[in-house]
Every structure is written in structure tokens, then in C-alpha cells.
């Protein structure tokens, strides 16, 4: 009929509008990986001997490993010798000098997402020394936190200033032998964040603004270590809803969380890396190892993630529930559009008594996107009265995308109670037409339905972040109706 209804194919094939490059003069070491490169990285960071030794052990172990291929993702072989493993921006002169020099399209995206003006400068790579200086960190927050005894700094700074803490906890959750990408990270990690909350201290702010300012520095091999001492509390927000582009295709980060007795760590991520173009060219490979250890009794670790970017996401934020009565949570939204692939989920390892875990995973696939939930719930013989509830929901947009669920459940204690619920639904033409016939455009309808689908996870994000995440899905879905 004559009525031009929004065509799904057209909507799906809109371009990623948010990428950008900043040309920076970089202080890079030659491509390729060998012990010399690792010694060079360590020397440039003025690291103590133990750190270099650790990196070298990791490297030697990595050489014995092979790239894992069990995930439902496919990509051409990665040439690890073609990567430059150290690149610190050293001059801002090449970057844009003010917002007037920045791509107006990018600025419009920031506008849509409601990014504050001062942060737009930072994100767009405008010359602001405090941001780009990878050796120092913004000091205002640090002073405030310092009064409470909270240490919050760049990882490389922690290695120099707090070597004992780093030595005690680094690799204690994700050892350098853990997996191919974690070992690689251990050998060559560039920088990241370090956070220590002393006993009984409740961190008074969401550690978010800070991170956003520093996010540009972390590079492709990021390392984060967060320790909440006895009865401490911290809420940490990683990433940024605003688009970020990086010329490095391979990202292999490691995040370790340690919660001692009675401590609580909330860790939220919004990941919006460049996903590649609509043909599936380019885009970030995001192979991340994230793990928390509820080491003490009555401790709690919550992961919340909203993953909309990257060409490939390979990521399983997990919790080891060692302490009695420990609680682990995983709330996830993963969206794949065009040719994006995500294999993501969690592991809940119940060791202590009366440990509880909750998993809520929402996968959204559009275009040719592939989305897999892969999760392990393991109840050891020692974990009397362990409980788990898992809910995995998939939403399909269009008929060329794919969603899979791979739940692994291992129970060695007869008192355990493990529940798994899964559902798959599709945004149908009839739902879109119904909304349209009420005056709501197809795009707004999809956004509304998807946000409704994700509500349970968004509710776990800090208020301000939840609003941003909602906007982000809206913007991402401008190209992803089904």
C-alpha cells in the first residue's frame, strides 16, 4: 500500500554515529611482544622489581597458552606481534584546541546524551592537561577521599605509592595464569585504577565522575583492583555512556574485586566502544576478565553491566562466594546490532555456607547480531544451604539475529537450591503497529519496549547512570529495529 511505514531494514542499517578519532602524538614502543618490551613498559612506569617479575612470569606463562575458541564468537586470527603494547599520549598540541574544532555530529550526540559541557571537552579530546596526563590524576576528589583514608588512584601510581597493598592483592582473584587474555594483560597492562576502602568506611560518593575523567587514559590493557576492607562500602561506575573510539582493536582488561568481612562492592559498567560499521568491519574486540571475591563472611559483590558497544564482547563478571552468608549479584544488559557478537554471562562459585546469588541477564539482538548468555552456577560440597536464582531473557529484533543461552550448573551439596528461568521474545510488527497506531513512532516504540525489557537491570544502576543508560539504548537503537 501507499503508506510509507518505517522500514526495518533501513532502521537497522543506520550508521554508528558516535565514533571519533583524536590524533595524538604518542610515545609508543615498537610493535610486537617480547621480554624486552615488557622490561621497557615496566621501566617507563618506574615500577619496583616485584612488578616486573610478575609481568615476566605472566608473559612466560602466556607463551605456553593458546587463544580460547569456545565462545560463540568468530573473528579473523589476531596477530599479537602486530600490536604496539605501550602507547602513552605525550602531547596535546595535536588534538582539538576547543569544542569549536570538534566534529559537530559528535557534539550533537553528547547533547542527546546530556553529557555535561566540561566533560564533553574531555571526551572529545580537547586539550585539558589534567585529563590527559597519564602520570597524575585529578587531585580534587583524591583529597576529599584521602581524609577518609580511601586510596583511589591510577594503578601505576598505586604500584609506586602503595606497593604492599598491590603486592598483597594483585592476582589474588585473577591469577596471571587464569586465562589467555588475563595472562596477556598481566604481562603488558598499561594502567587502570586502584581503590582501597579502609575498615568501616563507607565511600561517600559514587566513584564515577572521577573515572569518567580518567577513562581516556586506561588504554587497551587496563587493570583495575578494588579492595573493600572489613565493613567497608564502595560503589564504582566504570565507563561512560558517551561514545568512545579507540584505534586499538584488541582490548583485554582485568578487574579484580576483593570484599573482606561485611564489606560491599557495587561495580557498574556501561560499555559503548566502537562496534564496527554496519558490514561488520572494524570495531573493538573486548576480551575482559572480571572477577570478585567475597573473601569475608557477610560480604557482598554486585556486578551491573550495560554492554552496547564493541564488535566482540567476551566477558563474564563473576563472584567467588567464599565467606559464609556472602551474596553475589549479576545484572546485565547486552545489546548486539549489525554484526556485533557478544558472549557474556557470569560465574557464581558458592563455597561458603548460606551463600546466595542472583543472576539477571537481558540480551537484545538486532540486525545480524549474535548474543549468547554463558553462565556457571557452581555449588561446592562445603556450601550448605546455598541458593541461586537465574533469569535469562532474550529479546530479538528482526529475523536475522541470534540469541543463545548456555547455563552450566554444578551442584555438589544436596541442600542447594538452584533455579533457572529463561525466556525468548521478539519485538513483533504487531507490537510496533500497535504503538504507531497510538501516535508513537516505530523508533520510540522499540526504545520503549527495550527499556521496559531492561528495567530490572536499570533499576540496579545509580539513578543518574540509569537515566544515561536508558538514553544510550535509545540512541543505539536508532539503528536497530526489528
Amino acid at each position, binding site marked *: *500500500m*501507499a*503508506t*510509507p*511505514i*518505517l522500514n526495518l531494514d533501513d532502521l537497522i542499517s543506520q550508521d554508528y554515529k558516535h565514533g571519533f578519532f583524536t590524533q595524538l602524538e604518542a610515545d609508543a614502543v615498537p610493535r610486537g611482544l617480547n621480554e624486552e618490551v615488557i622490561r621497557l613498559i615496566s621501566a617507563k612506569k618506574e615500577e619496583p622489581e616485584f612488578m616486573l617479575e610478575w609481568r615476566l612470569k605472566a608473559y612466560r606463562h602466556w607463551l605456553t597458552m593458546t587463544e580460547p575458541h569456545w565462545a560463540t564468537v568468530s573473528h579473523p586470527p589476531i596477530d599479537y606481534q602486530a600490536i604496539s603494547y605501550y602507547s602513552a599520549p605525550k602531547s596535546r598540541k595535536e588534538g582539538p584546541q576547543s569544542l569549536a574544532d570538534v566534529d559537530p555530529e559528535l557534539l550533537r550526540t553528547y547533547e542527546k546524551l546530556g553529557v555535561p559541557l566540561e566533560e564533553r571537552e574531555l571526551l572529545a579530546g580537547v586539550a585539558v592537561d589534567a585529563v590527559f596526563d597519564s602520570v597524575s590524576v585529578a587531585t580534587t576528589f583524591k583529597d576529599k577521599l584521602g581524609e577518609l583514608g580511601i586510596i583511589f588512584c591510577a594503578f601505576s601510581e598505586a604500584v609506586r605509592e602503595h606497593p604492599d597493598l598491590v603486592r598483597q592483592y594483585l592476582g589474588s582473584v585473577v591469577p596471571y595464569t587464569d586465562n589467555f587474555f588475563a595472562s596477556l594483560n598481566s604481562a603488558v597492562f598499561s594502567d587502570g585504577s586502584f581503590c582501597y576502602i579502609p575498615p568501616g568506611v563507607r565511600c561517600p560518593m559514587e566513584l564515577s565522575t572521577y573515572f569518567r575523567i580518567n577513562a581516556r587514559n586506561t588504554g587497551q590493557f587496563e587493570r583495575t583492583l578494588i579492595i573493600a576492607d572489613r565493613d567497608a562500602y564502595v560503589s564504582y561506575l566504570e565507563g561512560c555512556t558517551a561514545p568512545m573510539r579507540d584505534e586499538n582493536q584488541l582490548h583485554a582488561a582485568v578487574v579484580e574485586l576483593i570484599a573482606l568481612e561485611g564489606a560491599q562492592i557495587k561495580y557498574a559498567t556501561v560499555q559503548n566502544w566502537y562496534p564496527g560499521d554496519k558490514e561488520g568491519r572494524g570495531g573493538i574486540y573486548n576480551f575482559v576478565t572480571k572477577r570478585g571475591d567475597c573473601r569475608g563472611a557477610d560480604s557482598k559483590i554486585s556486578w551491573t553491566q550495560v554492554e552496547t558497544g564493541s564488535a566482540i564482547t567476551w566477558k563474564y563478571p563473576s563472584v567467588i562466594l567464599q565467606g559464609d552468608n556472602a551474596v553475589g549479584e549479576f545484572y546485565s544488559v547486552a545489546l548486539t546490532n549489525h554484526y556485533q557478537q557478544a558472549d557474556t554471562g557470569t560465574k557464581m562459585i558458592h563455597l561458603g555456607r548460606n551463600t546466595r546469588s542472583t543472576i539477571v541477564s537481558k540480551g537484545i539482538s538486532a540486525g545480524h547480531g549474535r548474543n549468547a548468555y554463558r553462565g556457571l552456577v557452581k555449588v561446592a560440597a562445603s556450601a550448605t544451604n546455598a541458593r541461586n536464582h537465574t533469569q535469562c531473557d532474550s529479546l530479538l529484533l528482526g529475523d536475522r539475529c541470534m540469541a543463545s543461552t548456555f547455563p552450566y550448573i554444578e551442584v555438589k551439596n544436596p541442600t542447594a537450591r538452584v533455579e533457572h528461568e529463561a525466556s525468548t*521474545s521478539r519485538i*513483533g*510488527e*504487531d*507490537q510496533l*503497529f*500497535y*504503538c*504507531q*497506531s*497510538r*501516535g*508513537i*513512532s*516505530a523508533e*520510540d516504540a522499540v526504545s*520503549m*519496549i527495550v*527499556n*521496559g*525489557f531492561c*528495567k530490572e537491570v536499570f533499576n540496579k544502576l545509580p539513578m543518574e547512570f540509569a537515566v544515561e543508560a536508558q538514553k544510550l539504548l535509545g540512541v543505539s537503537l536508532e539503528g536497530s529495529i526489528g
Partner: protein
Amino acid sequence: MLEIRNLHVSVDGKPVLNGIDLTIPAGEVHAIMGPNGSGKSTLAYVLAGREGYQVTAGEVRYQGSDLLALTPEARARAGVFLAFQYPVEIPGVANIYLLKAALNSVRKASGLAELDAMDFLALIRAKLKLMGMDEALLYRPVNQGFSGGEKKRNEILQMAVLEPKLAILDETDSGLDIDALKVVADGISSMRDAQRAIVLVTHYQRLLDYIVPDRVHVLSQGRIARSGGPELAKELERHGYGWIDAGRSSPMGEGP
């Protein structure tokens, strides 16, 4: 308000409507009746702009302009409303959220300010009362887990909120028990006014006991086989649809 001229529509290449002519002035209620498969729902969907219906000839003018050139949402914003025979479930989206988004998009299109949460709540409460609906229904996902009667009432609630100029109600009476039918009919009747045209698509006469239409049209094989006043519906009730087709084969018919 609405002028349909020589409308031919095919679905998958198969003709379903074979030349509909129909004029509905503002302020009138028209009933479109007919047996299953006569094209009633197709006509309703074509007016609302659903995909998959090919208009092969004819035109539809709404308030003087070409209705078929508009997207479904543009039609809704211009005041066209379709109450669905089978209202669609939307898991995860609260009913109140859909209502508010719909009303604000329609208001925005007419240059009115969008309502904030408080004003909207006041408005929706008044409309709920009119439909005899529980406020709890607002916070449940759209149509999910609603009974048949709740779904139909919810459609009329949407109509009451959006206050369309042209309302097309597709078998709103089907699946309702007698009490629910009365509530829904009262809701529709309360919307009757001089500025609004209402099209009741129905299989049975019983809805028309509560809402007496100005005109009744009987569809058969994709054409309007007969038009008349409210008494036509009563005749149909007595004689069945076979009477229309019989009447067509013999132009004089049997008469009442």
C-alpha cells in the same frame, strides 16, 4: 470527516475489498457489519495504516486530505484511532507509560504542551472512573495477563485519553460478557459528540442495542451490499447474513 471512494485492497495479491464507497460525517456513528471474511477488519486496518495491505485502486480522504499517504503514527496524531479486535501485549512496558507516551505525542503534534506526570495522573484517574477500571491496571504491562474484557476496556480507555476525531472500533464487543459489554458501550457512548465520527465494526447486533448508530452498512465479499438506518441491523439479526447475499442475487429480495 471520512470519505472512502472506490477502495480496492489486496492482501498477498488476493482482492479483499472490491470497491468500497463510504462517507462518514463528523458527529455520526456508523456501524459496519458483515459475516466473517467480508473485509471488515481489513477496512479497519487499511484506515489505520497497517503494513501488508495493498491499495490497488481508490482513495481515502480524511478531513479533506489523503489519509493513505500518512504513516500510521501520523494518522494517530491527526486524530485517527483504531481499537484493536485483538489488543497486543507489550511485556515490560507499563500501561500508564504507553498511555502517557501516546497522549504526549498526539498533543505535541497538535502544538499542545506535553503533560507532566502529575497532570497526566489526574487526567487518567478521571478516565479510569469513566471506564470502571482499577488503577492497578495502569501499572501492569500493556495488555499482558489482562482478561478479554480488560483488554477491550483498555482500548476504550486509550480512546478516552487520546480523544480522537475518527474512532474505528474493530469488534470491540467480541468476547465480552453482558456486564462488560454495557460498560464498554457506555464508555463509547460518552465519547459521542458533534465533532467526532465513530465507526463500529461488529459481527453482531447486540452492541447496537446500547449504541444506536446513525447508519448501518453491511459488507459482503468486499463490497457494501446494503446501507440503511439502525433498523437494518435488527433485520440482519432476524434473517442472518444469508439474507443479504440472497438479496443480492435477487435484487428485489424477500423483504421483511
